[in-house]
């Protein structure tokens, strides 16, 4: 008996189908509840947690906010963010270097927040400029942070993450002078890897530049809700 000839069968399947399906379902749920979801990605130590703490603190008087925060091993970030007095839930990823949609889904279920009681939900990813780029988390807006201490060529070194994000934020701007950060070169590099990308330059520590960014978030929330209502009216 001869063994059958190998044959080539065409299959077109997205490898991250499962993640994408979960992310799509999450996005629909978030939209339906009227909560605007923002995720943060950056390298470790760029100041994501300080930036998020400040964001939560400043938004809280006018908006209902909550945060999910990914970390490999500790709950330190959640403890720090809790100082903003916003509800915070830690996602400990173990050895996993990125968040996946299923982890967000599980954390949202465990936190038992009523999503329709929220205006903004923030998701802080694990500090990593490589792996998070492949995973859709169901967010409305992805922000990539670049701190001035990392150097202005970071976008050229990690174009993929910049390409997967909607907005770039140059942080720790209060240190720009001390580290001789070339802001024009940084902006040029961001535009080279992601033409038209919206960029904010700010300092979470001094507060400079934060207003413009907070206004942008408020505007995006209003736009998102207007679209949802428009679609509901059309149905």
């Amino acid at each position, binding site marked *: 008996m001869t063994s059958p000839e*190998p*044959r080539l*069968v065409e299959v077109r*399947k997205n*490898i991250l189908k499962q993640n994408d399906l979960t992310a799509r379902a999450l996005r629909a749920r978030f939209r339906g509840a009227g909560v605007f979801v923002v995720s943060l990605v950056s390298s470790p130590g760029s100041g994501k947690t300080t930036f998020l703490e400040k964001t939560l603190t400043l938004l809280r008087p006018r908006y209902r906010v909550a945060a999910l925060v990914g970390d490999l091993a500790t709950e330190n970030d959640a403890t720090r963010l809790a100082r903003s007095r916003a509800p915070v839930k830690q996602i400990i990823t173990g050895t996993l270097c990125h968040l996946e949609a299923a982890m967000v889904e599980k954390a949202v279920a465990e936190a038992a927040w009523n999503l329709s009681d929220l205006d903004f939900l923030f998701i802080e990813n694990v500090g990593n400029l*490589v792996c998070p780029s492949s995973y859709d988390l169901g967010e409305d807006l992805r922000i990539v942070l670049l701190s001035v201490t990392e150097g202005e060529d970071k976008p050229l070194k990690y174009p993929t993450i910049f390409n997967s994000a909607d907005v770039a934020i140059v942080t720790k701007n209060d240190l720009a002078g001390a580290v001789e950060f070339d802001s024009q070169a940084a902006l040029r590099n961001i535009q080279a890897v992601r*033409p038209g990308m919206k960029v904010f330059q700010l300092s979470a520590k001094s507060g400079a530049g934060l207003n413009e960014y907070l206004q942008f978030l408020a505007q995006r929330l209003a736009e998102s809700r207007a679209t949802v209502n428009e679609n509901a009216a059309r149905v």
Partner: protein
Amino acid sequence: MHELSIAMSIIDVVAEEAARQQARVDAVHLKVGVLSGVVADALQFSYEMACRDTPLQGSRLVIEEIPIVVFCSRCQVERTLESMQLFCCPECGTPSGDLRHGKELEVVALEIQ
């Protein structure tokens, strides 16, 4: 290094298809965009490891790398980029973020017996 997670997702997708076809898989053909965030070498290595003790043990991974293609609004055609550090039309220099290819991460074919 998230290629191991990706390799395990490939095995899930392929095992399901192989069971449906009631066939043994010799090779898995993939399209991997250069902007997918996945490194081909690391994926090859992880795949071999992840296949151990699964029905896919011993199967090969054949990876086709997909370059970045953007639409140039000035030339009104799709252009392939040489570098992911410069999203500009290689002919006229107009910046373009209108991505048409380069984020692919998909199984396109199986060699089966």
